[in-house]
């Protein structure tokens, strides 16, 4: 697992995934946490929880993303479980950094929609 591999996944997410750009910082954080957790489960070949409506949403987004990861980046299928966890943690940190912590969007922390 390398920074280059995290970068490949990050570039894919930036280009394809609208959930990272929801209106407020707490929406973005909730999506990033939920979808990355569900995607990590899928990459570990276990089924994420889908009991609550938000769990089903995270699963729906993660399923598409993981299918694309496996298709576009075949190296991901060769990783050990610990490497997958490390990879997805790196991806999550990069997303939080770009879309929340260092975002220049002045509307991110308005208390109202």
């Amino acid at each position, binding site marked *: 697992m390398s920074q280059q591999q995290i970068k490949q996944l990050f570039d894919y997410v*930036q280009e394809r995934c609208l959930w990272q*750009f929801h209106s*407020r910082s707490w929406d973005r954080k909730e999506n990033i946490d939920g979808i990355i957790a569900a995607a990590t489960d899928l990459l570990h070949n276990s089924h994420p929880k889908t009991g609550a409506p938000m769990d089903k949403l995270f699963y*729906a987004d993660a399923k598409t993303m993981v299918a694309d990861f496996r298709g576009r980046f075949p190296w991901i299928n060769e990783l050990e479980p610990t490497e997958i966890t490390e990879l997805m943690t790196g991806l999550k940190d990069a997303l939080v950094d*770009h*879309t929340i912590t260092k975002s*220049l*969007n002045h*509307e991110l922390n308005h208390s109202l*929609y």
Partner: protein
Amino acid sequence: MPMVLLSCDKDIPEREKHVYLKVDGEDSRDFLPVSNAPTIPGTLSERGCAFCGAKLVIGGVLKDTIQMIHGPIGCAYDTWHTKRYPTDNGHFNMKYVWSTDMKESHIVFGGEKRLEKSIHEAFDEMPDVKRMMVYTTCPTALIGDDIKAVAKKVMAERPDVDIFTVECPGFAGVSQSKGHHVLNIGWINEKVGGIEKEITSEYTMNFIGDFNIQGDTQLIQKYWDKLGIQVIAHFTGNGTYDDLRCMHQAQLNVVNCARSSGYIANELKKQYGIPRLDIDSWGFNYMAEGIRKICAFFGIEERGEALIAEETAKWKPQLDWYKERLKGAKMAIWTGGPRLWHWTKSVEDDLGIQVVAMASKFGHQEDFEKVIARGQAGTYYIDDGNELEFFEIIDLVRPDVIFTGPRVGELVKKLHIPYINGHGYHNGPYMGFEGFVNLARDTYNAVHNPLLKLAATDIRAAKSAVFKEAAE
């Protein structure tokens, strides 16, 4: 490189904060255009007004609702028939226009009585119609007419009617975006949850931020029917007033236009716990992805794959025919906001087109985050562009086709560059699989049409003369 001060903006240097040129290695943490900010004095904006954002974009789409404009006649006329959103009941919304036709004396003495009379007249003339939206405009807001009180009085006298008021005069915000916001928040707070409709499927959703432009809603409704998903409410394409009151019944909110309608999706999540799923409905690849996500949410993936296979078999050969002939064409997208990020990758991936410049009238920074993430390096990203900037950008990037509105479109036609109506479409619908073939066909016809080049030739002279603009 980043933010760019165009030559035409030398006297309004504040514009530099609104024009961005992406270069490799940069992202929106480094530079993000200022947006949803007041138009700078000295620049002539292409923006619409806040009232227009509420009425023309969202409310006026509904197929069973009188749109009463409380103001001078021009506010009604100029927000009528300038967008093409048909309906399946004979285009009620496009046939009629309503106004209180305020004159000077009403401004001086107050317009509430005139509004009350107009509401009664409209309901009397159309006895089958029982729903109405009333909009305040700049003059009636300034004189303080209380349209909520008038609506309440009429509803007390006519128990079978329901009226929603939109207090969003043109001056209320920096652009039409404010009107989207006011209508969204007003509707969720005042009307959603009042009534309930019959649930006919195990799977229910709202489809939010699609306005049935030339039949978009009706085209993709076929997909939801095939998948067995009941759409509780379309916000607001081909939609009805009462369906929109039932939005709380859906299991999922699917959002297309996040700018005009993200607010109500956010509030439905906050107030009713309904998840928000954003998708792109324009583009082959995107539409398939959206269907896959919706089906995964409901656990009906097989149905989704069958639908995608069927639509792909039907339309992909045609799309590929156009792709072969459009590869390398350069496009500019100068529309409202979201279509920049909806379209830039879909035309690139599905049609081989390169997007070289994008301008947004009313997008917020969220929209620029999305489009800069998706768009290419070497592309210009502009907030609230003006005519002189457009001309300068054209010189810099030389687009083969421009997706924009008729006002800017007529300007670029003078430069013999084809434009396609990026708001109301040329020959839509453009959403879904079939729709994207329509978009490809219109783009092909624009790019390869010899008429504009022929029009540049003056046959009256012995040799061709180049037409000069008045400013040259």
